[in-house]
């Protein structure tokens, strides 16, 4: 008897449970996949038509108002169909995406403008002529390119050894000593030095020894080093820190002295990151204008000696051509844009180089 009734009873329990579940669905309504796109197109069309009927139709205005309507419509529809949480999620997705697109507009505009305006004078003459004796048309930025290369190279020669050695001290020797903490703090402070202050320092320093009104290339290199050293220290420090301690301990266990461990084990392991960090640091300072305007000055001819005489660099050349053009105005403006284009290309090449270097120097894992 009991054996017979038990299955009966369980069956009815299951049925009851099933009945109880019916009015409570496990999933809520969900908008179909095409819904967001449909709402987007619909809101753009609505805004476009309204603008076309009432006042002037313009693409930017349509896009802005369309995006607002799209966000509101999606939120309302989703709230009705899917509930509040999903609706908030959709709203935030739209806001984030729109913010991204909005941020893209000026950045793309910068690149397009520079390329459009810079291409006019992106010719052989720009790379082979200086501005000596040039009044209107013609001329070029050869002297500025040479100046930029010399000053940046000098800055790199000063900053790279100092920066890498400091990072080695911080990671390998200093470890939490008072000196190391002080250095870390002041490197952070240095990161925040405005570039023009670095230029003023170089000027104040050299003016004290070499007289007021001093302008020369090496001073520019010193100013750039002040901006570059902290970048090199920080990136190298990060790279040295991620070298596993086991590698160092293995080397010590084999009886290797510390300096050889650093040179032969730690540095080769992290050389990829260090090299790419250094390249990026060079890319940072190669476009600096303000300090060079102050200490390196401006000239029209080629100057190969960084220790005497003014030296033009590309950013200063671009600034001066635009801010103080001669007559006629057009050739000067064209040269300014071409200098900007060359600068962007230099930065681009250095960035690609950093990638390549990181890949080439990466330690072989097998």
């Amino acid at each position, binding site marked *: 008897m009991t054996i017979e009734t038990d299955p009966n009873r369980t069956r009815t329990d299951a049925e009851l449970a099933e009945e109880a579940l019916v009015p409570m669905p496990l999933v809520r309504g969900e908008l179909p996949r095409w819904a967001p796109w449909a709402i987007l197109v619909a809101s753009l069309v609505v805004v476009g038509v309204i603008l076309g009927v009432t006042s002037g139709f313009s693409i930017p205005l349509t896009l802005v108002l369309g995006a607002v309507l799209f966000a509101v419509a999606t939120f309302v529809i989703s709230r009705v169909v899917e509930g509040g*949480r*999903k609706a908030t*999620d959709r709203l*935030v997705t739209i806001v*984030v*995406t729109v*913010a*991204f697109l*909005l*941020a893209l507009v000026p950045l793309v*505009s*910068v690149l397009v*403008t*520079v390329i459009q305006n810079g291409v006019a004078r992106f010719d052989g003459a720009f790379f082979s002529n200086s501005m000596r004796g040039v009044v209107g048309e013609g001329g070029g930025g050869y002297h500025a390119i040479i100046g930029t290369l010399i000053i940046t190279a000098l800055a790199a020669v000063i900053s790279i*050894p*100092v*920066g890498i*050695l*400091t990072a*080695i001290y911080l990671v390998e*020797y200093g470890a939490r000593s008072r*000196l190391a903490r002080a*250095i870390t703090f002041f490197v952070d*402070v*240095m*990161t*925040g*030095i*405005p*570039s*023009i*202050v*670095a230029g*003023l*320092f170089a000027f*104040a*320093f050299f003016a*004290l020894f070499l007289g*007021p009104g001093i302008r020369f290339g090496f001073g520019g290199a010193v100013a750039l080093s*002040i901006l570059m050293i902290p970048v090199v*220290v920080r990136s190298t420090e990060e790279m040295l820190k991620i070298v596993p301690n086991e590698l160092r301990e293995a080397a010590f266990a084999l009886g290797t002295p*510390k*300096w050889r461990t650093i040179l032969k084990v730690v540095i080769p392991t992290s050389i990829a990151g260090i090299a790419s960090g250094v390249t990026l640091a060079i*890319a*940072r300072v*190669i*476009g*600096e*204008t303000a300090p060079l*305007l*102050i200490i390196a000055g401006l000239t029209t001819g080629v100057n190969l000696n960084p220790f005497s005489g003014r030296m033009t660099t590309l950013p200063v050349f*671009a*600034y001066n051509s*635009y*801010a103080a053009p001669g007559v006629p105005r057009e050739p000067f403006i064209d040269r*300014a844009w071409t200098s*900007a284009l060359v*600068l*962007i290309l230099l930065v*681009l090449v250095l960035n690609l180089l950093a990638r390549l270097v990181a890949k080439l120097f990466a330690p072989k894992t097998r």
Partner: protein
Amino acid sequence: MSAPTTTPPPAPAAPTTSTKPVQQAGDRIFKGAATGAGVLILVVLAGVAAFLVAQAIPAFAASAEQLPGGKNIVAYIGPLIFGTLLSAVIALLIATPLGVCVALFITHYAPRRVAQGLGYVVDLLAAVPSIVYGLWGVAVLAPAALPFMGWLERWFGWLPFFAGPVSATGRTMLVVGVTLAVMILPIITAVSREVFLQTPKLHEEAALALGATRWEMIRMAVLPFGRSGIVSGAMLGLGRALGETMAVAIILSGSGIVTFNLISSSNPSSIAANIALQFPDSTGVAVNVLIASGLVLFVITLLVNSLARYIVNRRAEFSGAN
């Protein structure tokens, strides 16, 4: 092992009981070089401060008649400080929310394959020289912003910020602020992105597994974790905006006034821009005045950066970003 007790113990083991590590000449030289480099940085920084102060003292000592414009040094630098802070704050207000959104888009919304490319583009844009942004600001943004500024004046003219009249050239404080925002946007994005990427995957997956939507996951797992990163990115951007020279110098034709009116043709200049504009033609005590203003800028950025570091350190234990 067991048998030969007759063999003598290995000779060198016994005498070297010294626990001091062996110091080679190479070791000492290398350590000395590394320490020296570190100390050199401290010396240089002390030098920056010392030389700036030394060259600035004549400006503070000089009487008002000797200074450019015949004004007191405080009256000369005051409006410049105001202009510097105003432009930087506008830039920060625009760039921080946008930068965080862009970073979120790259890390959590964009398709995986696109995201890496976008991250690279942002890094690249952070390295674009400021003079390029300045040229863009004056040649493209200023004319393009004219109708918008007219609209602001028409509808929001009752606010002191948009009282107008609108500058005919578009070279206004608002345009400078937007240009600076464009300039620091990649920096804020890059820093925030780094931190967002470091959010523990397990936290995110746990939130999603509990049924959180993507936004709830970001609000509960990603943003609390990345808060210090956002703050330090914003402060880094602020520092850059404060010290930015060329963009301001090329866009604004500043005068020594203090006004909150962002869209008129008379604007306060910034410290850095003023130095860049005046320095090439200055001699004598005018140079000292400019160096004194540079010293003030140095102190301001120092305060901002210290504040950022303090905030980051205070929150460091709560986030995993250390």
